[in-house]
């Protein structure tokens, strides 16, 4: 079976996305005979390319347009699929990957599924596993049409390690697609700084228990004193108590830090998915029945502000004494 791995090499999270594909490959049973890497890039090709858990047999470089819209790159992918008819196409779980997987499968009369954790191919088709029902259940779904276009689940992975692919056959496809007639104008603004949350080793995750915008500001200072990045639950971000770039969970950032301290968080499954790969999870909440306690390694039932202030005092005392 031929597999193609499709990624945007210009994305700041290129190597993280590659690692998410690796996780899928590790958890899957795929008898791959050949694996091609299809990489979108704009100007220069990146120095380091990710290492994958399967040997890459060829690389296709696809020139991406200035405005990276699925509509503008789908015709290119259709063309490449004609040249290299892979039966399984794996996309990253970012918004572009999700859209390309869905729409390319439709155009090729194949089947697609997003957010897949693992998969296996057999005579009945492709079987995939994904989280459903607000991450409370795991569904096994069978896809029968080919090609099978899958976007892997976002996991909050670290970056993939890189390797040299000099010896591998590489092709450059330069076709550019014309701007579609429905698009009259466009502007792009790129944030000056990429959010630090994804790469943080320590995260202070706060929920609605924080109470108000002023307290969230105070908690941000506490996070800094603890050497942590502030992350927030969806209601906190939607109340504009903190910026959208700090939102954790299914529709926000997924993190995997050494330590994640949650405070005033109830533990809804859509939030927990954002922190579940943390090495140590601490929960602070006044409600002893909050679901977050069963998802944490250690918990304190008490007022979050009082506990966090006291924790800052412990850190500061240690620093004064020079104890690490």
């Amino acid at each position, binding site marked *: 079976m031929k597999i193609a791995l499709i990624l945007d090499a210009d*994305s*700041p*999270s290129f190597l993280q996305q590659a690692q998410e594909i690796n996780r899928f490959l590790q958890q899957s049973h795929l008898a791959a005979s050949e694996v091609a890497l299809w990489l979108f890039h704009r100007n220069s090709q990146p120095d380091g390319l990710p290492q994958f858990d399967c040997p890459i047999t060829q690389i296709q470089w696809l020139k991406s347009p200035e405005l990276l819209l*699925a509509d503008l790159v789908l015709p290119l992918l259709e063309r490449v699929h004609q040249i290299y008819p892979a039966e399984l196409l794996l996309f990253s779980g*970012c*918004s572009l990957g*999700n859209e390309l997987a*869905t729409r390319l499968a*439709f155009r090729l009369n*194949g089947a697609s599924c*997003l*957010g897949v954790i693992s998969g296996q191919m057999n005579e009945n088709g492709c079987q995939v596993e994904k*989280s*459903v*029902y*607000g*991450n409370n*259940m*795991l*569904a*096994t*779904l*069978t*896809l*029968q*049409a080919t090609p099978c276009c899958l976007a892997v689940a976002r996991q909050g992975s670290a970056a993939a390690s890189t390797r040299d692919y000099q010896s591998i056959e590489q092709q450059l496809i330069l076709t550019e697609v014309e701007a579609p007639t*429905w*698009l*009259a104008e*466009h*502007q*792009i*603004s790129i*944030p000056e700084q990429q959010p630090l949350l994804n790469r943080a080793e320590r995260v202070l995750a706060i929920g609605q228990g924080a109470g108000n915008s002023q307290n969230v500001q105070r908690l941000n200072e506490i996070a800094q004193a*603890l*050497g942590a990045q502030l992350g927030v639950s*969806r209601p906190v971000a*939607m109340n504009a108590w903190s910026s*959208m770039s700090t939102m954790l969970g299914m*529709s*926000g950032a997924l993190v995997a830090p050494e*330590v994640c301290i949650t405070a005033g968080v109830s533990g*809804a499954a859509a939030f927990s998915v954002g922190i579940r790969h943390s090495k140590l999870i*601490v929960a602070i909440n006044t409600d002893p029945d909050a679901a977050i*306690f*069963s*998802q*944490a*390694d*250690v*918990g*304190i039932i*008490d007022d979050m502000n*009082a*506990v*966090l202030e*006291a924790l800052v005092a*412990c*850190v500061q005392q240690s620093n004064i004494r020079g104890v*690490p």
Partner: protein
Amino acid sequence: MKILLGFKASPDLSMMAEKDWQADDSLHIDVSFTQTMLNCFDESAAELMLMVRDRAVWQEGELNLSALTIGESRSEHYLKQIYALGFQSAIRIDPTASIDLRFNPLAIAKVMQAYHQQIEQQSLIVLGMQSSEGHNMQTAMLLAELLNWPCITQVCDFRVIRESKQVIVIRQTEDEQQTLTINTPAVLAVGNSTQASALRVPTLKQKLAGAKNSIHRYSLDDLGLAPQELQQKNDKQLTKLTRQQNRRAGVIITGGTPQEKARRLYHDYLQGRLG
């Protein structure tokens, strides 16, 4: 200009107890006892449509907002709310119970396509990007493919230029913000939107006025759709549904004061990991 909202009344999964997470022989989970809710993306989509209406002075018949849902009768509660907020029409399509639509966004997209083609043509179709049962995230994109329209995903805000009937859409991807001026028709999939984080609540007066409108109901037959058209080879087949849990030790630290508990937490777990 006609703008259609497609939404789903979702079960409030926070009301489910551990014992409720049991799939029956046909791989269904009983959520009938939970309250329903609009999922957050559908709420933002509806609110953004109302903001489009509020941003300009529209002549009679110039802007028409409607909302459509595919599902059981209890979703009509939201259609009444939609009327109270000033939408011109509210539609419920009753799917036959024999078809499992939970994991088949292509079937949902076909029903919406049929509504657009058979009942009332639209300039813009707006959907939330995801709902809580199937986590499919594909309905808007598949609808756009079926109609051969563009699809703009991750929409956080949009407005209509009254004079040109063009739409300015702001979409927020992981890496950048794009502001696109587009010609209609198009499908929009609304993602995280702080501009419209919740749907406004109608006043009692609005509710009374809205109650006079009747909900338009259609069956698949009315839309010219045969059930077998909604179960194609390209669709996904659910074969297993198991409980997914993410339990950890959950050791509770005790103590007389918050300070004492924090000290124990620090010394036993966090020393060397913080600061």
